[in-house]
């Protein structure tokens, strides 16, 4: 009990918002646009550190970054030309809204969440597996279902409801290993990795005791699989042997230290060997429990006073996705010993996302409209400032699908991708479907991502891939370029198509010279130029 009180005090000290709804004086008022608040807090930290941030990215770089982040692909040449020619002072906001309204936004977001929720999905399956969870997420995100509702549907799945079909995959894949389920839920939804506390109190973080790990696990102790369904019993407890002392029954306790007084705190009756109720496929599902601990977890995690973990975690994850680093880094270490780079901003954003019904699209929109998001990725001279200041945009590796779709798009004849509206969206959708197999060739990047030499070997020598991207065939970029008479124009078109920007004079000169030396083999020359652009670092990263 003493420990719990001490912990509660600690939480209050560290998460002041929990303590006092009457003390938000330190925070900016709630009705401000997200982007302004982001810049307010980031600029304040920059000024305090006396750091002048990198200048704003130019239009082409920003268009590429936004299109990759929101629609999972690079822009087409036509989109680039339109955007550069557009003199509307509101063009960035309009672009963001167009990208957010595209069906590609939903598909890309779904993949990002699949990567978060199912990180073990095999390399080969990535991007192509239309598994239940991805189908569910696409449906949920298409109607911009609030994040708290998604959480509830994942934790309390109902396969009979067509609106949530597929959501049960999350639990079903984990129910056989409750330790893993506990750690995954805690990591993915609460930003807290309690795995250390499985064996011992966390060595450095006073917040995490064994009681927290087993307390959280207790919410899942009665969950089991029956005939392919996830079910829950009326009774069941978690026992553990603390580092000091004898085996004990874990109290059902949330991360904040809040303890649930649950009925049925005894061991589940031993199931007779063999068949269990609902044990075979097609049989009736086991009856739901009278008191569901899992439902209690959802209720508690979203309750005022308890929901900070949930709200901060999703804010931090979306921040990380768009800025390349979390306000708290790493994402699963949101605890007192690891404070946020901008605590007030995190607090403001968490409050905002709660107040606006966990509307993720709104949050994403706010983040990408900030000046901070739009900074250039180049640091001209001197030491690069601490990443925590977000003074310069990070260079972020493309995800497997971003890479695959962008490769296919860049290799396509730009004329085939002109236009806009539903026809264009349909073409992009088809392109994505064709790119799915390609996505399986690339690893999902983590925080310490490094490119392997096998990827370079693949691009250098794999005939199938090179044929797919560089064949002299109608509909492909190479075929189009070889019909352009001027070598300079060929070079410029190639750079626009692949790197989504205008070519610089030195590049035009180098590429032109390269092709001129190969006038006896003009197609090969074009192929090599496009190859060098596709394999350049500038293409491989979002910047």
């Amino acid at each position, binding site marked *: 009990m003493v420990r719990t009180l001490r912990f509660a005090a600690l939480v209050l000290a560290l998460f002041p918002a929990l303590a006092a709804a009457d003390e938000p004086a330190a925070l900016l008022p709630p009705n401000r646009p997200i982007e302004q608040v982001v810049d307010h807090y980031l600029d304040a930290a920059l000024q305090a550190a006396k750091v002048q941030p990198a200048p704003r990215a130019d239009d082409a770089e920003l268009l590429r970054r936004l299109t990759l982040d929101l629609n999972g692909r690079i822009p087409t040449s036509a989109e680039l030309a339109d955007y550069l020619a557009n003199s509307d002072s509101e063009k960035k906001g309009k672009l963001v809204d167009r990208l957010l309204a595209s069906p590609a936004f939903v598909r890309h977001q779904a993949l990002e969440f699949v990567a978060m929720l199912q990180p073990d999905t095999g390399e080969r399956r990535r991007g192509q597996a239309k598994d239940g969870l991805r189908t569910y997420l696409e449906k949920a995100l298409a109607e911009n279902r609030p994040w708290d509702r998604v959480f509830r549907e994942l934790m309390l799945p109902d396969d009979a409801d067509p609106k949530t079909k597929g959501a049960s995959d999350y639990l079903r894949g984990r129910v056989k290993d409750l*330790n*893993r389920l506990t*750690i*995954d839920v805690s*990591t993915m939804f609460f930003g807290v*990795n309690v*795995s250390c506390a499985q064996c011992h109190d966390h060595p450095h973080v006073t917040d995490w005791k064994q009681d927290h790990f087993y307390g959280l696990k207790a919410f899942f102790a009665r969950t089991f699989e029956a005939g392919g369904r996830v079910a829950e019993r009326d009774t069941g407890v978690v026992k553990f042997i603390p580092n000091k002392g004898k085996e004990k029954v874990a109290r059902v306790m949330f991360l904040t230290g809040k303890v649930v007084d649950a009925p049925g705190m005894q061991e589940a009756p031993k199931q007779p060997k063999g068949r269990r109720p609902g044990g075979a496929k097609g049989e009736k599902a086991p009856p739901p429990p009278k008191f569901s601990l899992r439902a209690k977890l959802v209720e508690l995690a979203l309750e005022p006073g308890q929901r900070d973990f949930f709200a901060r975690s999703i804010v931090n994850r979306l921040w990380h996705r768009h800025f390349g680093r979390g306000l708290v*880094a*790493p994402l*699963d*270490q949101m605890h007192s010993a690891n404070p946020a780079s901008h605590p007030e901003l995190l607090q403001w954003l968490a409050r905002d996302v709660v107040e606006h019904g966990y509307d993720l699209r709104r949050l994403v929109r706010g983040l990408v409209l900030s000046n901070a998001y739009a900074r250039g990725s*180049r*640091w*001209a*001279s001197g030491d*690069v400032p601490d990443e925590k200041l977000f003074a310069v945009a*990070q*260079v*972020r590796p493309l995800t497997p699908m971003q890479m695959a779709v962008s490769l296919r798009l860049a290799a396509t004849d730009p004329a085939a991708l002109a236009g806009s509206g539903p026809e264009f969206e349909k073409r992009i959708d088809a392109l994505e479907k064709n790119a799915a197999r390609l996505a399986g060739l690339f*690893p999902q*990047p*983590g*925080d*310490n*991502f*490094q*490119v*392997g*030499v*096998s*990827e*370079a*070997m*693949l691009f*250098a*020598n*794999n*005939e199938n891939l*090179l044929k797919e991207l560089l064949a002299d065939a109608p509909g492909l970029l190479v075929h189009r370029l070889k019909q352009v008479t001027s070598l300079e124009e060929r070079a410029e078109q190639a750079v626009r198509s692949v790197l989504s920007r205008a070519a*610089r004079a*030195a*590049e035009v000169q*180098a590429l032109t*010279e*390269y092709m001129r*030396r*190969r006038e006896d083999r003009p197609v*090969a020359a074009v192929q*090599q*130029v496009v*190859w*060098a*652009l596709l*394999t*350049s*670092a*500038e293409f*491989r*990263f979002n*910047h």
Partner: protein
Amino acid sequence: MAGKQSHRFCGSPEHPLNRRGFLGTMAAAGAGLFADMTGLQALAAPEVANELRRGEKRCIMLWLAGGASQLETFDPKPGAVTGGPFRSIQTSVPGVHISELMPRMARRLKDTCIIRSLNTRNGDHASGARIMMRGRANEAGLAYPDLGAVLARECGRPDSQVPDYVSFYFATEGRNMAPGNPGFLGARYGSMDLTTSMIPENIRPPAGISDADHHSRAELRDLLSRGFERGRTSPGLDSHNYAYRRVHGLMGNERLFDIAREPQALRDRYGPTLFGQQCLAARRLVEAGVPFVRVGRAWWDSHGQNFDTHEEMVPELDHVMATLLDDLEARGLLQHTLVITLAEFGRTPNINSQLGRDHFASAWSCTLSGCGIKGGSVYGRTDATGNRVADGEIGAPQLYATIYRALGINHQKNYYVGARPVPLTDPGTEPIREVLA
């Protein structure tokens, strides 16, 4: 001393020629277009690189996928109810007996330590294999690198002309159970997998492009990337350029995989089997500086007809393993190369109704040979029937701590995943001193 010489980078007589030839090609290709680009930095000073290489360690893992029986290999129990039909034979080490199916290893046990007391507690192929390749189970949210990836990281070099981690695994059985996996270290340290051909995928240039164009194209790529890199730094970005700058070095080293370049007499010694050929290729690779090579030999999962299976397969293992150790020793490589013979688990002492043995992780064996190992020794003991470890029980963590120490790597070294320190082996794990030289 000759042996020591041959350990240096250019062990194979043709290797220096290859390197020089490659430099020549680079110079010719690069001469025209971009005069300021001086080729690959990696090639700037090969002599210095060779000096640095001395003292570096290598590792070959003979991976007996499916689970070889300890009773028919290194921990026989002749006469016991669980013993099966094979006898045991005296080895070159007084008092130590192994299965009669391993006469050659019995004669050359001097470099090998037999560990007979593994209790790894996991009898499932896939998760057992993951544990035995890492020394521990993955955690949620933290995928550990396997041994190959750790050695790629510890012993490989960013600009290396040879791969860091090569894995031969042709059999379909069990290949997907535990593929090479760099875990949190990332793809940079991933394995070069050979699954269908003795020559790696994508190592030969595609049709329709000349050698010179292949190189010029790479230089053009490099030029474009350098422009982008100015003012931008990240480990990911660096790794991308390193990866591309290694391509031609690796392509130039295709011959490392070509065992036809070995004298016929030596190839005959390894024998005509795939396993034998791959072990010979593994020796060529470690000789050239590859830090880690795994040779997977599958089909050990003898739930039925265990004794027929082992009567057929153990002699091959015996022959190839002994030949490999002889060959490494003859070239002075054995003192720098650790040979690990390991599986995901052993097999039950109990003989089932199909005359098979099932999965068994409670009391089984592996061997460590060569670099850093006290040869001619046995560590640990099982009881009379082989059902339990009677003495010196260890799990995967201690085995791995021992492996790291044998290779001169601090087993408590930390990697950082974000701010979190992740030690190579779990805190408190100690290597087995008795196994180490």
